[in-house]
């Protein structure tokens, strides 16, 4: 499986994302600059964390208008897996590919620690290697991870099982502790925690590895014919 790791000016988790799929899973990966206008040769799109364009205007707002985002939108419409982590999640909401928005943490602090997440929906192409309700430990590092959406959107998310991860504890003010959501079709996931920073026990935990394994597993089942 071949992944594109999209790099914006100010991305800073692109190396971790690359490492997770390339070194830990042995899949193919390329760094793709934000002005690229062709992602057709990639099977999966990864939007890494960081501070694209210095978080100017709003987090993800300027990155959202990059040329590559038209391609990301096309990939999403084609049903390819698209994963946005942290700033990547913010970019996906600003682009309108995922609903809602990430606000400043309720305590106004940048928070960097490892937290417990609950897998709310293990029946997605990003979570099939987890068990429903499983608690996993994943690092967070964000100042603006306070997920907000209006009541109607929240009801939709709940009804369609689009809430994929939630925080075990409320620390940033997110609506119903939402940590990650998926689009209605189920091929675009945005989440604030960093699974790519939890892919090896050597770096303090490997609970995030199953997320990347899930993507690859689903893709193999759909695309690789058994000879």
């Amino acid at each position, binding site marked *: 499986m071949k992944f594109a790791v999209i790099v914006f000016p100010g991305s800073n988790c692109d190396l971790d994302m690359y490492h997770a799929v390339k070194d830990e899973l042995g899949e193919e990966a390329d760094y793709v600059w934000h002005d690229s206008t062709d992602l057709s040769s990639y099977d999966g799109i990864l939007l890494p964390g960081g501070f694209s364009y210095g978080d100017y205007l*709003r987090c993800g707002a300027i990155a959202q208008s990059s040329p590559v985002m038209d391609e990301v939108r096309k990939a999403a419409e084609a049903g390819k897996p698209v994963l946005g982590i942290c700033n990547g999640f913010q970019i996906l909401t600003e682009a309108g590919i995922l609903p809602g*928005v990430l606000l400043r943490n*309720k305590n*106004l602090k940048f928070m960097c620690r490892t937290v417990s997440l609950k897998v709310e929906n293990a029946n997605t192409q990003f979570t099939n290697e987890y068990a429903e309700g499983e608690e996993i430990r994943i690092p967070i590092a964000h100042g603006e991870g306070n997920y*907000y*959406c209006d009541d109607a959107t929240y009801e939709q998310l709940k009804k369609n099982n689009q809430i994929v991860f939630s925080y075990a504890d409320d620390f940033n003010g997110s609506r119903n502790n939402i940590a990650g959501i998926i689009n209605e079709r189920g091929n675009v996931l945005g989440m604030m925690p960093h699974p790519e920073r939890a892919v090896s026990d050597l770096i303090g935990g490997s609970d995030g590895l199953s997320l990347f394994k899930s993507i690859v597993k689903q893709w193999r089942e759909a695309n690789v014919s058994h000879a």
Partner: protein
Amino acid sequence: MKKVKIYVTLRESVLDPQGSAVMGSLHKMGYGDVADVRIGKYLELLISDDTRDIDAYVNEMCHKLLTNTVIEDYRFEIEEAVSQ
């Protein structure tokens, strides 16, 4: 040239932790009469006079980039800018 002044405010339904922190500070300083603080943004754009429908032009920019209408409202004023 036209000068466009855009005022971006958080929607009433959205909590403003920054505003709350500022209000807390004002209260501590003795300004107890302050009942609420909401923090927004102010943008100034200079736009050439050739733009035919400047209202539509500004609205489009506000929707596509300058504001996020999920959480923000905006209004704008248009003035004649004195050329430098």
